[in-house]
């Protein structure tokens, strides 16, 4: 890469401004961010996921997730035929380092990235005894780790298995939709690194967000719809075998 001194003199302040924006000192992040202007979700495109595990690695690095626990993970499905007995799923270390090649090439196989669904009617926030986990005014289900007792009721109540107890903080933890990033105009770490665009942050309150058009033109589902959780992680091309 070649950078002339002249270019550097011009670019450094620009980068500095961008970085200042990123580092914005107010606890609320950018002073232009109003929680009531947003209602966050995520679009996951099964037809595009290649199971590279970049999202899992990036999430771990961005959010300091301890080994053996997962704020997001990727599952590989192998469906040999109709029927429960013909479904095989694996997720080696959450898919963090990709997946070993399958010897058997029978049936169809695909990857399903999973994360907190940031449910609008979330069963996990319903059961928290003290209000340590809650849905923010902009639709992100968060955990207040200074208030959490570590009773683990929320972990039991989540139908999707996306919560865990952080062994270091002894509090419940899960995907925060990179709240510290999205409130500053950035996208989540997992979406940032996804090479195929299988993961895309969606702002349901923003009329210009491509999610609205996408939802109107594709077959989209949520996980476990019978539980009526109001899940906001929308899956395109989700097979009926996916649990």
């Amino acid at each position, binding site marked *: 890469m070649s950078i002339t001194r002249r270019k550097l003199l011009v670019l450094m302040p620009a980068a500095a401004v961008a970085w200042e924006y990123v580092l914005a000192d107010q606890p609320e992040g950018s002073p232009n961010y109003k929680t009531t202007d947003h209602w966050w979700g995520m679009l996951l495109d099964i037809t595009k996921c290649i199971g590279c595990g970049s999202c899992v690695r990036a999430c771990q690095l961005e959010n300091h997730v301890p080994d053996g626990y997962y704020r997001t993970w990727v599952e590989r499905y192998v469906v040999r035929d109709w029927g429960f007995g013909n479904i095989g799923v694996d997720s080696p270390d959450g898919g963090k380092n990709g997946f070993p090649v399958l010897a058997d090439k029978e049936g169809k196989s695909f990857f399903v990235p999973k994360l907190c669904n940031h449910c609008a009617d979330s069963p996990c926030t319903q*059961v928290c*005894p003290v*209000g340590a986990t809650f849905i923010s005014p902009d639709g992100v289900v968060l955990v207040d780790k200074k208030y959490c007792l570590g009773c*683990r009721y929320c972990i*039991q109540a989540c139908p999707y*298995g996306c919560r865990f107890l952080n062994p270091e903080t002894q509090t419940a933890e899960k995907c925060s939709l990179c709240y510290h990033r999205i409130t500053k105009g950035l996208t989540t770490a997992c979406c940032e690194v996804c090479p195929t665009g299988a993961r895309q942050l969606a702002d349901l309150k923003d009329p210009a967000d491509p999610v609205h058009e996408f939802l109107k033109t594709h077959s989209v589902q949520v996980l476990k719809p019978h539980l009526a959780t109001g899940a906001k992680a929308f899956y395109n091309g989700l097979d009926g075998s996916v649990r």
Partner: protein
Amino acid sequence: MNFDGFMYPNEVELQWSVLIVLYPFLTGLVAGAFILASLERVFLVEAVKPTYRLALLTALAFLIVAPLPLQLHLGHPERSFEMYLTPHRSSAMAMFGFVYLWYLMAVLVVEIWLDYRKDIVLMMQSFKGLKKCMYWTMTLGSTNISNESRRVDNRVGWLITLIGIPSAFLLHGYVGFIFGSVKANPWWSTPLMPVVFLFSAMVSGIAAVMLLYMILSKIHGREIDQRCVDTVARYLLYTFLIDFSLEMLDLIHRIYEADESFRSLDFMVHTRLYTSQVVIQIVAGTVVPIALLGITQVLRLNANVRKRLYAIAGSLTLIGIFAMRWNVVIGGQLFSKSFLGYTTYKMGFVAREGLLTAIVLTLLPLVILWVLVNLLPPWPEKNAAVVSPSTPRQLAD
């Protein structure tokens, strides 16, 4: 990895340990012991009177210990008071904190105090030094034990017991609801859960008081009131039949409807949960005690044989009800919510949430009960200065 099939990566490790199994077991004993006490007080089943005070003290001993397994389980026990400061009204767990406090303070402690007040005053007058101080505190400075005041006590005590019955139902029904309301877990989620928990609590409480009465009587060299113990055993049988019917109803309903989860749960019960569910809970812990108790009702057996059968049935019952709690709590975490896999429970021994801790916490209430029995003797004849508590009751209407 110690799991079979597929589990969501965060599901492999169990969240709720043997301490969370112990907790409903202990609160169940409280509720059951109290219901037995109320049999005499409210439903006037006079035959069980000899167990009245013992049942109350048993309830208190277990209720004092009940929060300990919870505190030891929490990631931040020092924050547990938050449940009282900012309780989340939609959370059964938060509301339970108040039910517990209400039951402990407004029902159990008040009822024990009212019943024992005369004895406390007399003991205060007959002891010296630290003991005198302790009893004086318990009197709240009031030494009026006239017949009129005792009549007031009895009236209020009757009212407290009356309120106490639904409170006891609430105490343990809530625990059942904590599990029964979790739609994410099909092993737990059923409207029958609070009812099953409550009836199994009553069974365990009655069995526990029956056993303790027989054991303590033996230790104190007192004769066991046969009519009392026969009546308690009969109530144990009736409650057990209801409990068993409810559990069978749940099972039959599951098998019949065979929803999405059934395949996975059925497999779990036949494999990882077989010993604790079928062998210990159902056969040894329910069918055998019901059969033994049934035999005592149908055949004419002599008193000693009956007492032996009650002791065996009671012990098996307690084991069976503990197994039931185990099967609900641990069983509910052994299968994956994807219905595609199973994990194992690795219970430590000398660990914060290990088996040793559970054993200590189970024995601790017995130690506390011992202290309570010495402090507030359920058999006042032991202390010559104290008159039998039954007298004032007979004066009331």
